[in-house]
């Protein structure tokens, strides 16, 4: 069994009965290896469809989760259970086995980074005050708005109005929480929250691959929320200097906000400024100053000052990308997509209304960005198999579009790997408003392929 990966969360979906006899059969050696190689921030086992489990059954997965956590420093645990199952797990692992428990996957996802800049209001309660505070801090660091209740009674009262909250968090425990730096997205800026004493460990806890992905999909402003940083040593200084150099290649800006130099040598500030990092006293200085935001790259429009040109190696592989797109549409809809024209040009979209777009980057032996633009009706049709509901909301359609473009990139990766090109793919990004995409991509030259599907036109655009 393989984990299903959505965004940066991998989940094993088990069904039926889970005991010591059958549990090892869920995971072959290849499955374990594939799981250990996943590039994710959180690994969970869903118990939603498990009608019976015992400790021996859970132990098999706990062992895998612990291994993954020890090697990758990510959050691991179980999710999707009711109150009874929560109590049973806590009885089995009285002294704690180090994993996290999230009542639902929806709750777990609040504790991870995504490409979306949504701030959710959530109601929170845990009997243990330290757990309660830890969860509230993490949620806040991920850009959410936790309403922490101090007593069970207050929680039950507030719970009577569930419509006020995106999620109600109970029967949830962070356990030994992943050590990754918390990440959130605000508009076109990515905010990393760092704290305490920064040393060599920062290179383990900072998710470099997520940062690289973000650069590849067009983010250009990265802010380190450093209010809670006490001090840093020379190893951390080197780390941030290197990060600044790599950001310069993309013309991206890196800023520190709220960093105090009481216990950090002033000379570090000079070194970091020389490397191109900027310092601000508070977040609003950046986020509420539109001109500055635009200048730093967080406005989106001026993102790619140093636009990189198409190269031969990317154009040579164009057929693989088109094949991956066309065959994915055929697989998902049983209908054929027809290629109408291929041109090297800047992205040209006739009319920007009633369309959705999605993009996904890839990097490795070759690098670039795939952009797909669909009429809304066609996007919905193409994702019908994934959605399964004719009355799906815009959010569900956009989520499915991200999964759709992920499949396309996955297929392209397989085709290119067969030609000995090794590459990784970034998180997909979706756009409900085409203008947001145009702000990032309008000046980029690329290959535009106009395709039609059931008589409606859609655009495939490959660029760097």
């Amino acid at each position, binding site marked *: *069994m*393989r984990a*299903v*990966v*959505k965004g940066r969360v991998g*989940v094993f*979906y*088990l*069904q*039926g*009965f*889970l005991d010591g*006899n*059958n549990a*090892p*059969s*869920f995971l*072959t050696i290849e499955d374990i290896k594939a799981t250990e190689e996943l590039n994710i921030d959180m690994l969970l086992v869903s118990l*939603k*469809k*498990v*009608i*019976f489990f015992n400790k021996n059954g859970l132990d098999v997965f706990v062992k895998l989760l612990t291994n993954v956590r020890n090697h990758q420093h990510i959050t691991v645990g179980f999710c999707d259970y009711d109150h009874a199952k929560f109590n049973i797990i806590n009885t089995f692992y009285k002294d704690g086995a180090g994993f996290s428990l999230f009542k639902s996957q929806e709750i777990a996802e609040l504790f991870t980074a995504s490409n979306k800049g949504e701030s959710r209001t959530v109601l929170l309660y845990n009997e243990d005050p330290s757990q309660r505070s830890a969860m509230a801090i993490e949620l806040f660091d991920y850009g959410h708005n936790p309403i922490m209740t101090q007593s069970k009674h207050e929680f039950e009262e507030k719970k009577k109005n569930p419509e006020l909250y995106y999620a109600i968090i109970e029967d949830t425990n962070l356990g030994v929480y992943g050590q990754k730096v918390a990440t959130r997205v605000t508009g076109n800026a990515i905010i990393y929250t760092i704290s305490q004493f920064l040393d060599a460990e920062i290179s383990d806890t900072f998710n470099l691959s997520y940062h690289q992905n973000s650069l590849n999909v067009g983010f250009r402003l990265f802010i380190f929320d450093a209010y809670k940083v006490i001090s840093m040593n020379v190893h951390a200084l080197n780390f941030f200097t290197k990060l600044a150099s790599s950001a310069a290649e993309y013309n991206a800006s890196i800023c520190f906000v709220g960093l105090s130099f009481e216990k950090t040598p002033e000379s570090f500030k000079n070194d970091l400024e020389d490397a191109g990092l900027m310092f601000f006293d508070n977040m609003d200085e950046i986020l509420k100053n539109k001109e500055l935001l635009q200048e730093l790259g967080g406005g989106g429009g001026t993102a790619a000052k140093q636009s990189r040109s198409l190269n031969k190696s990317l154009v040579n592989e164009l057929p693989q990308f088109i094949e991956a797109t066309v065959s994915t549409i055929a*697989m*998902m809809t*049983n209908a054929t997509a027809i290629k109408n024209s291929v041109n090297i040009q800047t992205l040209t979209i006739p009319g920007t209304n009633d369309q959705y777009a999605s993009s996904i980057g890839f990097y490795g032996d070759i690098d670039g960005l795939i952009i797909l633009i669909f009429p809304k009706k066609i996007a919905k049709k193409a994702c*019908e*198999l*994934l959605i*399964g509901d004719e009355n799906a909301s815009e959010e569900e359609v956009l989520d499915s579009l991200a*999964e759709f473009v*992920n*499949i396309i990139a*996955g*297929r392209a990766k397989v085709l290119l790997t067969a030609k000995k090109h090794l590459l990784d793919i970034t998180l997909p990004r979706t756009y409900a408003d085409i203008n947001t995409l145009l702000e990032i991509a309008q000046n980029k030259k690329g290959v535009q392929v106009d395709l039609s599907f059931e008589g409606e036109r859609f655009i495939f655009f490959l660029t760097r």
Partner: protein
Amino acid sequence: MITSEEIALYIQNIPATPAVVQEALNYARAGDLPKASKCASQDPVLKLYLKTLMNRPIYGFRNEVSDVAQIFGILGLATTQQTLYHYLLSLLTPKKWELFSLTNHQFYDLQASISKHWEAILTHLKINDKEIQSAISLIPASIIVCEALFAKHKTEVAQLRSVKALDFNTILFRMTGSDLFDLSGEIARKWEMPSRISDLIRSASGTEKNLTGQERVLAQWMHLLLFYELSQSAYVSAGLNDFIDFKIEFVQDIYESFAQVVQYT
């Protein structure tokens, strides 16, 4: 990936019930085991199937059982009918399983285990009905149909399932409007089995919302039994555990009784 036309072609290509088996089934339904066994003996393939089946460890016979009359005598009326259905299904099993890592012997063991537990369940439910008892033998047909339709799309399904937890039954339904249990019901219809059987098979998917009374009870027990069997180590390894969606909320209220009946501890 899979179209309604492919499904129609698949159903069309299902062989009709062989005359000998049909005749043996008619005698069994009429309660005439001697004539049923005489009839079954005329078909060497059926005879070999019965002999192989009866000597599988699950039946626990110390000496080899080889005479058809003796086999039918041991099985009794209802189980004979059930075994003849098993034989019909065996005509559809692939020579080589590609989608699921399964052998035909493992598949026959699954059929036998489901049948034995179903017998215990019906005793618990105090239901004494030959048709209901034998209906269970058609449940594994959904696995055969799944193998036949999806084997050549294994890679595509794996890519789809790497981003979304979709089971084969849901994929098929969303693409064609029919699910694996509908198709198993079609097979039962093609083999001229009573309509009650095809209805029962359809209900085992756990997705039918309008079930009431005994129909609903039987559907619940069938659905849970199927998942109990598919949670056995060999079938988990074969990739059968997640081929359909387990409707846990549909069976939650019978779990305690179920665990007692199948002696699951």
